[in-house]
């Protein structure tokens, strides 16, 4: 299999799918969200599959076993740039237990960790031992892994084109005019480093052929996308491919789309006629399956003395290895009223694995820079940073220049968040405290589409015994999707969530989008609701003659259909279904939304309080408040967990996480959980999740939006801004490691 060496921006699909305008709008109009108070939706519902998880019975791809299973291992290039001259598999093939071996790459390898060969054997140990017997002749070539080095004219070329490429540009108004109108102008630099997803379950795939039909059990966020891509790569009909994922141990974007090793498993399984499993090691997971691309921003921002922003000029150098990295323009374009705006982004290629979408790609890095600049501008204006944000508030998208927002409750987030953190306690002037330990508070605003994908499908079935079963080709990546589906079906049909049988995670089920980009709930929940509403109509029709009342006078509840005015007049659900003696099917579809007349976005605001040890440079987060406007909340319990997780990951990225490369060898030097630091229980403060919980009635039949990315977007930025408020200097780079904090303090002393 050969493919172009430059990884096309993996976020394109992710973000395109997240944009309502990128999807068909011809679906029927949504039924308006009902005004009545829900009984199940919005309350705290424990996960319906909780008992499986806590007893170890939830089976993840890692845990699956089949008779005759072979284990495969992949030999990866130790060189960041080389020519593979020859590969000799003969010794490996002769090793006891080895059943097949494949050459995966002859010609150029462009990053350390790129696939070169693979071996399938009867045990993992045998496969690993046989890998050492594969003889590869490399011609080592010069490489570059540093983004600034790679941009120099004499740097080794990663591709057959210049390493440095323009990537994204945007203009609004006249930038020079905007700065001429400004009374205060500041210019600041912000840098974010490579952050690795590091899901607990490493990537894993099992491939099994049955004649011409291929089944793949994959640790994936997208069963349908993997099915389609596998069919394309293997040149077989999509109808002959099935992809299954029951439980998955985290992804955060690294498991969107088809992985190279999955194709290898399928090829080895074909060749051996046996099922083949590939489980990546933690080391492979650290440097072979992507990371969040790095950024180097320069932000120049000008405002009137009263805080009215007149102009902003953002430049960014993106680095995503052999990939193109993230576009980081959208928060700049959208969040605040900025009449004169100029965006100039470029990408630089280096010899490292291509970056991949990482929870809120682009927005997270952009928010650190934009919100950092807002905080620093407020300081220059001697203004409350919250007031500065309010001063430049918008009611319409694209910085108040385009469509009106269907619903924007960001002001409510500001109000609730500021109150919960005690915003009045912050340093009125950044760095106003004294002594070794300094406290500070900071905030950041958030925007993300989260509108969902029209055309998402689901099927609801009622069996003659009254059992309700829901099928949808979505997947639960840890957010509680099974339970959300059960909540919506139970609400609509008058059941309890635990009574609903939910079947997801299989490409044979009705189409649903990737679980990424905050798409799942606003895509899937309305499709379930649609199917369930049809079932309600059907059941009322069945009950109407039995109860001697017209369908519109009937209601469902407690597994019965009853007359609203006289609830004692009722017929048991089971009796109704028994009478028809077959399964009743209800097709549900997520309808379109009016994206030509309204803009649909999620909003949020985070407030953090920190304490910085000025002697050691160590930062401790004391409290973090996260207020979110995501439309109607489906399940408060899992929504809180999503927010707590997003805040924790943002804190972790702000303080600890960085993929470090050795310039000499071009290899990652910290490919494990010990040297690549992630937050533990000891690092997290009290986190306060707040929801505005107002349905966006134009969006879909429930008024729900997505919540996956929103809490991750402003979390690092709020912590960085709190450190600025504590110290009077912005560290300007995440992770804010102790050396970087101390260097920032030195800069402050030197008056730079």
């Amino acid at each position, binding site marked *: 299999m050969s493919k172009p060496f430059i990884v096309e921006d993996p976020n394109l699909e992710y973000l395109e799918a997240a944009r309502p305008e990128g999807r068909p709008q011809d679906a029927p109009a949504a039924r308006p969200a009902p005004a009545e108070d829900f009984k199940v939706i919005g309350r705290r519902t424990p996960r319906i599959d909780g008992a499986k998880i806590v007893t170890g*019975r939830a089976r993840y791809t890692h845990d699956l076993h089949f*008779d005759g299973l072979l284990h495969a291992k992949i030999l990866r290039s130790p060189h960041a740039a080389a020519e593979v001259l020859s590969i000799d598999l003969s010794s490996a093939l002769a090793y006891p237990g080895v059943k097949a071996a494949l050459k995966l790459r002859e010609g150029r390898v462009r990053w350390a960790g790129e696939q070169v060969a693979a071996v399938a054997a009867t045990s993992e140990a045998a496969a*690993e031992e046989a890998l050492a017997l594969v003889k590869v002749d490399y011609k080592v070539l010069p490489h570059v892994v540093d983004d600034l080095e790679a941009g120099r004219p004499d740097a080794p070329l990663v591709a057959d084109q210049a390493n440095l490429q323009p990537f994204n540009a945007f203009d609004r108004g006249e930038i020079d005019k905007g700065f001429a109108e400004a009374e205060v102008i500041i210019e600041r630099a912000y840098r974010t480093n490579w952050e690795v997803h590091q899901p607990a379950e490493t990537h894993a795939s099992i491939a099994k052929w049955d004649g011409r039909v291929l089944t793949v059990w994959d640790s994936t966020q997208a069963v349908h996308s993997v099915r389609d891509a596998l069919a394309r790569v293997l040149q077989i009909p999509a109808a002959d491919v099935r992809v299954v994922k029951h439980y998955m141990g985290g992804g955060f974007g690294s498991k969107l789309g088809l992985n190279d090793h999955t194709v290898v498993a399928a090829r080895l399984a074909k060749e051996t006629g046996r099922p083949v499993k590939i489980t990546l090691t933690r080391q492979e997971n650290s440097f072979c399956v992507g990371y969040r691309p790095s950024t180097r921003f320069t932000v120049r921002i000008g405002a009137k003395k009263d805080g009215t922003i007149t102009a902003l000029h953002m430049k960014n150098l993106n680095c995503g290895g052999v990939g193109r990295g993230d576009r980081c323009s959208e928060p700049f374009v959208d969040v605040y009223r900025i009449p004169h705006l100029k965006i100039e982004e470029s990408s630089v290629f280096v010899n490292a694995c291509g970056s991949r979408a990482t929870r809120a790609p682009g927005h997270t890095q952009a928010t650190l820079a934009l919100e950092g600049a807002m905080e620093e501008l407020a300081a220059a204006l001697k203004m409350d940073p919250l007031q500065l944000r309010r001063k430049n508030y918008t009611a319409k998208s694209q910085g108040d220049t385009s469509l009106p927002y269907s619903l924007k409750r960001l002001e409510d987030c500001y109000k609730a968040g500021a109150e919960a953190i005690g915003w009045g306690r912050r340093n009125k002037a950044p760095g106003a405290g004294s002594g070794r330990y300094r406290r500070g508070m900071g905030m950041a605003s958030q925007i993300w589409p989260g509108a969902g994908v029209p055309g998402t499908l689901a099927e609801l079935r009622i069996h003659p015994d009254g059992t309700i079963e829901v099928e949808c080709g979505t997947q639960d990546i840890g957010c509680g999707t099974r339970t959300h589906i059960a909540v919506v079906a139970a609400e609509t049909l008058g059941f309890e969530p635990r009574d609903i049988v939910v079947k997801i995670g299989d490409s044979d089920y009705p189409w649903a989008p990737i679980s990424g980009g905050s798409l799942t709930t606003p895509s899937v929940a309305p499709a379930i609701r649609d199917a369930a509403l049809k079932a309600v109509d059907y059941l009322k029709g069945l009950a109407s003659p039995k109860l001697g009342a017209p369908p519109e006078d009937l209601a469902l509840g407690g597994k019965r259909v009853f007359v609203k005015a006289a609830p004692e007049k009722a017929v048991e659900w089971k009796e109704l279904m028994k009478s028809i003696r077959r399964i009743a099917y209800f097709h549900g579809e997520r309808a379109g939304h009016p994206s030509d007349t309204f803009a649909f976005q999620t909003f949020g605001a985070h407030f953090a309080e920190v304490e910085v040890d000025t002697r050691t440079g160590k930062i401790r987060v004391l409290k973090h408040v996260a207020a979110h406007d995501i439309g109607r909340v489906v399940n408060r319990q899992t929504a809180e967990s999503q927010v707590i997780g997003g805040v924790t990951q943002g804190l972790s990225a702000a303080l600890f996480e960085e993929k470090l490369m050795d310039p000499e060898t071009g290899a990652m030097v910290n490919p494990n959980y010990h040297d690549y630091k992630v937050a533990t229980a000891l690092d997290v403060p009290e986190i306060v999740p707040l929801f505005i919980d107002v349905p966006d009635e134009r969006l879909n039949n429930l008024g729900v939006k997505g919540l996956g990315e929103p809490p991750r977007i402003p979390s690092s930025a709020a912590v960085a801004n709190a450190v600025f408020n504590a110290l009077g200097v912005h560290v300007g780079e995440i992770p804010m490691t102790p050396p970087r904090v101390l260097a920032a303090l030195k800069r402050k002393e030197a008056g730079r």
Partner: protein
Amino acid sequence: MGGGAAGAGLAGRLLGREENFLPAGPEDMEVEARRVVTLTLNGKRMSLEVESRETLLDVLRGRLRLTGAKRVCNRGECGSCTVLLDGKPVYSCLLLAVQADGREVVTIEGLAQGDKLHPLQQAFIDEDGYQCGFCTPGFILAAAALLQENPSPSLDDIKAGLGGNICRCGNYQKICASVGAAAKSKGRD
């Protein structure tokens, strides 16, 4: 690369019992240093033959198909493979199976009493003390050991007790709340 991947493929054999545990390995493979290990696993005494180089984690997952303990880092960094060894939490990826000889091992599969969940398991469900659930067995067993030693821990005690476990989804706050709730419910019993 840790040595833990060692012997998952070799045929497991339970001595004194009829069934074989899904032989997946090559019979013709040269085997060095096999040993019979006798241990009490989730309350049942058993003997099985292992390779000396096999970790307890790989024996549990590969030979016995007890897949609740997870292989996440395979080098003692994350706690997802935590089991109880004579009541103490251990990283089963850092322990050779032969080291469990003569000792008592409890995995997540052995924590509930039949259909009745352990108070910690119930609390993790009630408090949503998980997200993807992959690290959950390790957290619950680490917490079980903590509550054994300290039945009414403070929040700081809980954080310290769980400091050797990583939840990449980042739901520590609810994990700690789950442990706190379990401690309270046990106190009421």
